[in-house]
């Protein structure tokens, strides 16, 4: 039976983290099925979903942690491994949107705006926030359920954004079918 694990690596950035992590996983015969990595203000953050398909024998969370132990030896990186189930998100039949929020930085911007998305039954599928000087920027991709009143959702988001002193734009996500 194929097992799926989520491997999270967090900590101080340095060259070679991805090479070391994937080398450890490859040594166990694990197959990386999905991954994301970014730097958050210089802090390394990565999550990989890897399956045991192709592994030469049974692989458990402890085996993966041991294989990645060299990463944590210096004490500036944390590795976490947890089993997950393979649950691809089913299509909702709704619509996809891109939300941009920008303005002066202050606490509470994200919660105020995404709260309106949640109230509308929307699901955020990707999110980036950035801070440069005084400018706070949020760009999110989200799905609204079928039948949602997008204009009303946009109005609610704009009102919430205005309440925390920022501006918001909601646009339909464009996909080019070639």
């Amino acid at each position, binding site marked *: 039976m194929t097992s799926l694990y989520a491997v999270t690596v967090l900590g101080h950035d340095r060259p070679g983290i991805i090479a070391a992590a994937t080398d450890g996983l490859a040594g166990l015969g694990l197959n990386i099925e999905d991954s994301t990595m970014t730097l958050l203000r210089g802090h390394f953050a990565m999550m990989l979903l890897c399956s045991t398909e192709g592994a030469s024998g049974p692989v458990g969370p402890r085996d993966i942690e041991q294989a990645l132990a060299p990463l944590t030896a210096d004490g500036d990186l944390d590795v976490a491994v947890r089993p997950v189930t393979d649950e691809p998100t089913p299509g909702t039949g709704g619509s996809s949107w*891109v939300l*941009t929020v*920008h*303005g*002066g*930085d202050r606490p509470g911007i994200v919660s105020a705006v995404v709260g309106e998305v949640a109230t509308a039954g929307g699901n955020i599928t*990707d*999110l*980036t926030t*950035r801070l*440069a*000087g*005084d*400018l*706070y*920027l949020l*760009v*999110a*991709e989200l799905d609204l359920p079928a039948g949602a009143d997008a204009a009303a959702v946009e109005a609610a988001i704009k009102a919430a954004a205005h309440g925390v002193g*920022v*501006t918001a*734009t909601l*646009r339909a*996500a*464009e996909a080019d079918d070639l």
Partner: protein
Amino acid sequence: MSEADSDRLAAWTEAELDLAGRVLEVVRAPDPVLATAGARVDPADPVWVQLAADLVATMRVSPGCVGLAAQQVGIAAQLFCVDVSAHPKARTHHGTFVLCNAEVVEASRNDRAREGCMSVPDFTGDVKRASRLVVTGQLPGTGEQVTVATDAFEARALQHEMDHCQGLLFLDRVAGAHAVHPRQTYL
């Protein structure tokens, strides 16, 4: 659109305004003026004629700047200047010009490209814009209405500046959560 309009715009220079432009400070996000839609202007009003000269003067001294809107110097008005003539991505271009109360007449053939902005100096973003564009607007001073067709980089610059006049930044049009990038090089 007419060839005469295109020639008229290409022949226009700030010398027609017959006054010296002043170099103004360029405002940066999150200044609220950048999120404020501009009012229509009277292109013959001396206030806006002066601003037209100021925008060109400020664009001239700003490295890499190919366009500047009124919002970027702190004034919510429908007025901007453009000059992409020295840019390698430009195909059709009309030199330096200023348009008041510009509106899109036709837009087609969308293209995605990475944009930056003097008012958002720390980010660039991937934005889809029409690469074939017909725009109408008025020239400052005389108030002549011109309708001009353009393409490629000048079309992108026009749409970017017209967005400023409506209180929109390129950030409001980025393609998705991974379409905003920290700027790597500063001009």
